């Protein structure tokens, strides 16, 4: 019952949002749907939801873990959206970068797609059936493409086109991966088995190795494209920088995780069949390469939203790396997923405020933020410290756990490279952030008004990150434990 309503609430809300005429009611609808979804998700921790439609929809602890992150992030974005959508009034607006005029897409479409996007992400997380997972991931792409194109101008259009085409092609490859996996089962035994994780784990001994490896490559390239692993990340900086900030926060904090769950679902199968080492070495390589690419592009970055986007590439790399190393590092990676999602959502929401105040995305043109918008500036600095992995925030702890896992596992070279890349990224981002907050304000020096709703979600996340940095609450520890146990036992 809970499971069905988790899907039905955003779905019905999304459809209703297309129909509702009044802007005020539609915003209330968005907030209500978000609150209801979060409440249902939290209830699912207490009452284990029964599987629906046979084995098609199953919410296990891994799915619930990521669903909680997604739902909380969506709630934060909905709260932020109450304020944001008011400022994005209808009519012509001036572009921040090139100062031409453009109009927004209809708000009904934006809200509707936002809720459908949530429904698609819920579907991804609430299934252990590989084909339904695929359908869900493709649906997230389609529901989020109109969100990126909310500001109707040529740059967002270009970003949307790249996003749509690159991700669709990537996901088509993942479908090929599903067929390969089905083939690996039928080559030896001749029988076809249902495409659920549990059935594959049960038949692990009779799976054909060569096809399984081919399948994993397809999955890694396919879902890796969506997850933003380098070198398939090319859509990510464009989409994240051109989308409205609350959408960027969702893309980065929730969607990338969903794509990663697509890969995580496979690992128990490969583990049971004895190919865990093959997958893990690939994940480590892609992870380190993503961090390298992110470091190179962060150092010379001039646009602060693109900087955050590359930071997402970096953190997805860290997650892949942690999962690939396994053991303690895997535990750290699951914890890292929470920390990264909250910190990145916080940063993107603040970036939206900065963009609104300064009307530019160029780092060099934002100066003296501490004088002009002190709350945003203080949170921006705190968020930077959190995202770059400085103590006392949660990311420091999870990155440290991953590092310890690497040294424990004897991966000294990878550990060294990891530390080096982390420090390069820290320095690169520090330069940008200090130049933005410090200094004389360029234009009229007076303070601007900062509405409470525009920074409240970020403030809550900052406090949470501070807490997880100092002390991991027992419920979080349990949740991470249970989720990482489902990923596999290596």
């Amino acid at each position: 019952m809970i499971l069905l309503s988790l899907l039905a609430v955003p779905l019905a809300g999304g459809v209703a949002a297309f129909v509702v005429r009044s802007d005020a009611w539609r915003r209330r609808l968005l907030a209500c749907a978000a609150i209801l979804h979060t409440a249902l998700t939290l209830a699912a921790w207490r009452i284990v939801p029964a599987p629906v439609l046979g084995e098609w929809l199953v919410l296990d602890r891994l799915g619930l873990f990521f669903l909680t992150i997604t739902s909380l992030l969506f709630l934060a974005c909905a709260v932020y959206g109450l304020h944001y959508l008011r400022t994005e009034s209808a009519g012509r607006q001036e572009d921040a970068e090139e100062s031409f005029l453009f109009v927004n897409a209809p708000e009904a479409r934006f809200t509707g797609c936002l809720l459908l996007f949530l429904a698609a992400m819920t579907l991804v997380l609430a299934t252990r059936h590989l084909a339904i997972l695929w359908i869900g991931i493709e649906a997230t792409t389609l529901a989020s493409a109109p969100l990126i194109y909310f500001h109707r101008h040529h740059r967002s259009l270009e970003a949307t086109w790249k996003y749509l085409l690159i991700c669709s092609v990537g996901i088509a490859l993942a479908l090929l991966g599903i067929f390969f996996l089905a083939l690996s089962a039928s080559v030896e035994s001749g029988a076809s088995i249902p495409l659920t994780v549990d059935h594959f784990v049960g038949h692990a001994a009779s799976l054909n190795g060569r096809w399984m490896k081919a399948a994993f490559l397809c999955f890694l390239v396919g879902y890796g494209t969506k997850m933003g692993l380098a070198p398939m990340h090319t859509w990510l900086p464009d989409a994240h920088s051109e989308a409205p900030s609350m959408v960027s926060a969702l893309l980065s904090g929730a969607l990338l995780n969903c794509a990663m769950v697509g890969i995580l679902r496979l690992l128990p199968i490969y583990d049971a069949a004895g190919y865990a080492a093959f997958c893990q070495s690939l994940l480590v390589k892609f992870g380190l390469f993503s961090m390298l690419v992110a470091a190179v592009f962060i150092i010379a970055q001039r646009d602060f939203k693109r900087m955050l986007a590359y930071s997402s590439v970096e953190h997805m790399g860290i997650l892949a790396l942690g999962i690939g190393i396994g053991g303690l590092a895997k535990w750290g990676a699951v914890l890292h997923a929470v920390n990264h999602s909250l910190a990145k959502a916080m940063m993107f929401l603040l970036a939206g405020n900065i963009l609104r105040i300064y009307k530019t995305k160029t780092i060099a043109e934002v100066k003296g933020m501490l004088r002009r918008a002190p709350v945003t500036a203080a949170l921006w600095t705190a968020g930077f410290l959190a995202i770059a992995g400085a103590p006392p925030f949660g990311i420091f702890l999870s990155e440290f756990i991953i590092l310890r896992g690497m040294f424990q596992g004897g991966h000294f070279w990878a550990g060294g490279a990891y530390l080096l890349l982390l420090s390069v990224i820290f320095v690169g981002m520090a330069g940008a952030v200090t130049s933005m907050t410090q200094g004389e304000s360029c234009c009229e020096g007076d303070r601007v008004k900062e509405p409470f709703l525009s920074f409240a979600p970020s403030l809550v996340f900052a406090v949470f990150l501070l807490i997880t940095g100092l002390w991991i609450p027992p419920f979080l520890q349990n949740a991470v434990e249970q989720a990482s146990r489902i990923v596999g036992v290596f």
Partner: protein
Amino acid sequence: MLSAVALLGTSRIAGCIRISAAQGGLLALLLLCVRGTGSPYFWALAGGIAVLKGIVFPWLLRRAIRETDVQCENIPSVNYLLSLGWAAVSFAVASWISSLLSVPFHQAASPAVAAAVFMIFSGFFLIVARRLALMQVLGFVTLENGVYAFGLALAYDFPFLVELGILLDIFVAVFVMGIMVFRIHRAFDHIDTRQMTNLKDEP
């Protein structure tokens, strides 16, 4: 499979769309050949594919053409001779791959594997080597057809609902892409993706 060769060689967009439609129809036929005609599910599915890929997609794309009035040639960034050369090479590779696979494929479908792999290759090629956004959509459809044909050749039976879900996803994908092509035309006055280079980073 011939249809994919023709796609690489055809210069007029309208022609390409017609060929893509034929490909969709063939795919539906392939489904009936492989799965047999016994169950009403298969008929429904084949009908769905034929309607969607043979009629709805071409209609969507033609409408995009009409509204953007791109009547011109489809400008390749790799010329047609090379494209056909690529076709020959990838056909050879595809047949080689499919002969390598010692797999219990369905009897009627064994040539379909080569065709499927070939369609995947040519889909990629169309996306990379054609400049018009519209042709990239066609490339995506070809790629998707290839993947689907591969699945058919496996004779793996998805549950009916899952098949419908996959079809629906692809339909919405092409639908959204069609709208985007239209928007790109409105914003840029062309649908040439080579000129969309505003967003990039200098390392």
